[in-house]
């Protein structure tokens, strides 16, 4: 907010210009005020009792596990997809790039219905999965992971693709002239080069998966212990006990902030 005298006195940075500072603070207030609203209304006295409820811990555990698995799935599939979009040239690449953002545009509930139409019991692939392998995804924890990965993957792909485009391709070319195969160059040169982008994308992806509601409840349903994640528990609590919903939201928020902050310190060097 305030600039120190040292920077005001003609340092390289100079005084932060007001056309940037005013909207920045407005933006910050816009993002933080709803959180303040939750904090003001939170029933602090009942907080410990609510936290001790087994259903809350179950939902929290399920949320953390499924969001992490979904992030793993996104990394496994999303990083190669981002590489393909940034480095390979093929017809219709622009169209593919636009298609990658479909889950961002689709209302999550519609995304959930779409998943049911493909992977559901009567779905295009789901029918085959059930008859061949006896696998049904809806109403299972694996279904939660699928729904979360579907909604969260674009965040990873877009972020990694951006990092790849910004990375200097000459490093890869140098590796190639030194005899490295394209796969080796990707593993030993490209991937380390874009690691900050991959981590940023994974964090976004994880956070989005953690908060996922619409696609999850539509595709995987809602049952305590198997598919009821925190956002689902929050939504249902809102129907009868708004105070409980506030507590649950704060728990989810606090846990995610603590995890993200500690990961940031460990894995990234940026302040």
């Amino acid at each position: 907010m305030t600039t120190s005298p040292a920077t005001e006195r003609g340092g390289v940075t100079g005084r932060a210009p007001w056309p940037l500072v005013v909207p920045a603070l407005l933006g910050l207030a816009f993002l933080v005020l709803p959180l303040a609203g939750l904090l003001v209304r939170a029933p602090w006295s009942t907080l410990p009792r609510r936290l001790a409820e087994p259903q809350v811990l179950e939902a929290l555990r399920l949320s953390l596990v499924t969001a992490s698995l979904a992030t793993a799935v996104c990394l496994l599939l999303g990083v190669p997809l981002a590489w393909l979009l940034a480095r390979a040239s093929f017809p219709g690449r622009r169209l593919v790039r636009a298609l990658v953002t479909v889950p961002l545009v689709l209302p999550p509930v519609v995304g959930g219905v779409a998943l049911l139409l493909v992977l559901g019991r009567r779905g295009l692939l789901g029918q085959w999965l059930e008859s061949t392998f006896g696998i049904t995804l809806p109403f299972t924890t694996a279904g939660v992971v699928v729904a979360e990965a579907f909604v969260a993957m674009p965040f990873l792909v877009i972020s990694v693709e951006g990092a790849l485009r910004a990375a200097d391709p000459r490093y890869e070319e140098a590796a190639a002239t030194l005899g490295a195969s394209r796969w080796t160059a990707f593993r030993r040169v490209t991937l380390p080069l874009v690691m900050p982008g991959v981590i940023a994308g994974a964090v976004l992806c994880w956070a989005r998966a953690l908060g996922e509601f619409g696609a999850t409840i539509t595709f995987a349903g809602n049952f305590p212990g198997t598919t009821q994640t925190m956002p689902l528990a929050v939504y249902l609590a809102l129907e009868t006990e708004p105070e409980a919903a506030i507590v649950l939201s704060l728990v989810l928020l606090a846990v995610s902030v603590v995890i993200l902050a500690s990961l940031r310190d460990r894995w990234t060097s940026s302040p």
Partner: protein
Amino acid sequence: MPKSSRWALAIPLALVLAALPACGAGQAGGTPAAEGGRTLTVFAAASLTGSFTEIGRAFEAAHPGTAVRFNFGSSATLAQQIVQGAPADVFAAASPATMKPVTDASLTAGAPVTFARNKLRIAVPAGNPAKVDALEDLADARVKVALCARQVPCGAAAVKALDAAGLKVTPVTLEQDVKATLTKVELGEVDAALVYQTDVIAAAGKVKGIAFPEADQAVNDYPVAALAKAPAGDLARRFVDLVLSRQGRQTLAAAGFEVVPAP
């Protein structure tokens, strides 16, 4: 702190605070107000979407220059919006329990009146793959069942009906509202679900409804009330009168509601 920085903080805060009431007013969807006319805002349970839209049209025809706009949704959510100060004129809930927060806050003009009842039915997908024909079949472990979560009216009714039958049913999912439960049946993801009679009628062709005797012990009463702080004033009362009128009852009966005899 330099003076300019203090202003830099104050202006955005003032803008945000100024924008808040405007955001609240914009949330209820519906038709725009007629030119220079009055607008009546009705908050109603999602299960009333079809019948209330029709009653709303009749109301607009009877009161030229008046536009009726609806906010359909989960009764509990609507009740919270009203308690938090949403500018509604009429509230129609899917259960007395969801009307209660509003009456507790003394926000209704007079006591709510029960205008319709909804009964549960077993809904099965077209073709009835699991050959369900009675409530007992839902307790079979091979039958995949969807129920509403007990926090919402249809879930509370389902618990009552199953308790009355002495059945223990383990559903694969507890859905957030009756439409979501119905979707699971329509797509064939579950073999059976408990939904309202009105939902079965609205989804005619895609699902089949099966009546069962215990439904009589889990009837959902729908209360309606004009609100004390109704911005549209007397129009709110007149809309409630239309819902309770012969015409209103006919519309509701056509949608599958059991209508309550006039008081």
